[in-house]
């Protein structure tokens, strides 16, 4: 079964992530799952969200395995600090992550402080979305029509 987000859930996620950006003074915020799918993105960063999600999910997965080596269930957060930009990754639930990009003007403490309640709010929204999908409510009225005009991908311009 596919994971789906309907318009209402997307709008709620938008609001939650925008609030997080304002409060934490971060630049960019991405919600992705541990398979690397981009579920939502807010912010003014010019990074490719699909690459951010793939690498963010990979980094988090690797850190979880490191935690297990040390006898921990998982590390709650992953933080990479650079001179200009930093990345903060935390789990929303077992298979979704918040990836937050912030500059040196913001503080890691502030990001961590506001990421936690945002993760709780996002978790509730994703659980609602999952329930709706199980009840097959949100696919109704969204017919997907397959194009069959030749191969999808071709070499050349």
């Amino acid at each position, binding site marked *: 079964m596919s*994971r789906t987000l*309907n318009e209402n859930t997307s709008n709620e996620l938008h609001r939650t992530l925008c609030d997080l950006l304002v409060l934490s003074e971060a630049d960019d915020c991405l919600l992705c*799952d541990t398979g690397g799918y981009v579920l939502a993105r807010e912010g003014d960063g010019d990074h490719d969200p*699909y690459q951010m999600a793939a690498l963010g999910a990979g980094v988090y997965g690797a850190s979880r395995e490191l935690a297990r080596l040390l006898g921990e269930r998982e590390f709650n957060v992953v933080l990479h600090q650079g001179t200009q930009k930093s990345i903060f990754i935390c789990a929303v639930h077992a298979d979704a992550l918040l990836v937050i990009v912030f500059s040196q003007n913001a503080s890691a403490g502030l990001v961590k402080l506001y990421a936690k309640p945002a993760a709780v709010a996002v978790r509730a929204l994703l659980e609602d979305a999952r329930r709706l999908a199980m009840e*097959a409510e949100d*696919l109704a009225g969204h017919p997907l029509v397959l194009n069959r005009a030749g191969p*999808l991908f071709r070499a050349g311009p």
Partner: protein
Amino acid sequence: MSFVNFKKKEVQLKIVYYGPGMSGKTTNLQVIHRMINPTARGDLTSVATSGERTLFFDFMPLVAQAFEGYETRFQLYTVPGQVIYNLTRRLVLRGVDGMVFVADSQWSKMAENAESLANLADNLALQRERLGDIPCVLQYNKRDVPDATPLHYLEYLLNNRDVQLPTFNAVATTGEGVFETLNMIARLVLHRFLAVNKHKEDGVRELVLV
């Protein structure tokens, strides 16, 4: 697990290139990146060792108009083929929608091909999936090597099953067979996406264009 965002009108699907070390998985993505229209792809990201062996994965998003009114993003990944990186392969396989198994046609690589295919089945089982249930295409790569294994032997070794997987001969370094493989796995993934969601709800339907 595919992902549909109805507000953005976007479908995301994940395809993983699997196979033994040095079989040509990264080369497949490099050739697609080089040959496809740049508007249809994002950057190719490689997390590799200094010796250019894949350490974590390669990643490249492709965009297609597979569904009317929707943007369909195929996220292409490779796994590291070396035996020691099995944990990494498991991470990359999470949420996979379709797979390309890139086999090396050299005689000396037959044991590695068989071992890697068995490893794929084992890793899928850990996430409660089966090889026969997820779309998969076999690519017999390096068909230009002097000691290329006969195709019937490759079929016997890797495709000996009740429902055979689609196969393509390839010389990935020249691009031969690369797009044929990609288009087949993309189609299979789309058909499964529709089939799985149809079981759940009639809201997803298929229309044959004439």
